[in-house]
């Protein structure tokens, strides 16, 4: 039996890598994918805890996260397309109209 901590470690690594991806990537699509990576890391943690506590409720949550991830990918990618249409780029460094 593999200890819980191993799974959690993998989850942490994946989450951290996702974060790094969000931070260092300049491509909007890669950033979105890094976010997916972070969601997956969270999913892994949920599944491991579910197994640990023998509670399948967490599976439902993961299921819902899938739905959210799908929605997020759909909306996020539409945004990417919209932005690309306007600016002809998906470089986040070109997008600074949030400036306060």
């Amino acid at each position, binding site marked *: *039996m*593999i*200890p*819980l*901590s*191993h799974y*959690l*470690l*993998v*989850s*942490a*690594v*994946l*989450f*951290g890598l*996702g*974060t*790094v*991806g969000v*931070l*260092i990537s*300049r*491509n909007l*699509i*890669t950033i979105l*994918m*890094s976010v997916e*990576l972070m969601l*997956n890391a969270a*999913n*892994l943690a949920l*599944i491991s805890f*579910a*197994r*640990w506590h*023998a509670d*399948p*409720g967490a*599976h*439902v949550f993961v*299921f*819902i996260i*899938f739905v959210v991830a*799908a*929605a997020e*990918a*759909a*909306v996020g*990618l*539409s*945004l*990417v*397309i*919209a932005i690309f249409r*306007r600016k002809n*780029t998906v*470089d986040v*460094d*070109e997008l600074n*109209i949030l400036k306060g």
Partner: protein
Amino acid sequence: MDFAVFWIAAGVAGAAAINLIFQSKPINSVLSLVVVLFALAVLYLQLSAEFIAALQIIIYAGAIMVLFLFVVMLLNLNQDQFGSNRKPGLRSFGVLIGGTLIIEISLIARAFVSSSPTDGQVVAAEFGSVAQVGRLLFGEYLLPFELTSILLLIAVAGALVLAGKREEAQPPEERS
């Protein structure tokens, strides 16, 4: 055996994730992410979450990633067409932050584990099966489950509005 599977899967996932974030071509990143998803599906199976593992392959790797792939193709972003990096410091800073985060989360995870009394539990064979999760979904969690459909509906509408063709000519708000 278990350990070997675990380490292989974990190693593949980690390597693919690293490849994901450091690839300059989005298409490669997408493919790396698919690899990560498959590796994670193996881990899910190991954790006796069959239903989720199946969903992971079918929906995530099958549907969502195709969406990504489609957009990447659509926008033809294969070449690295970006200008010079405006925030050169952010690259190492991001790695640093990510590293710290990994260490911190691991520490917390360890704290959890060390406070847990037992090392794993025996679960029923039914655990994580389609039937069991399905019962939960249509029983105890019916309302959230139905709500997800609304969420998806909204997402579809949003995606259509955002990415759909504009009939009326919008003034192109060019900000050099």
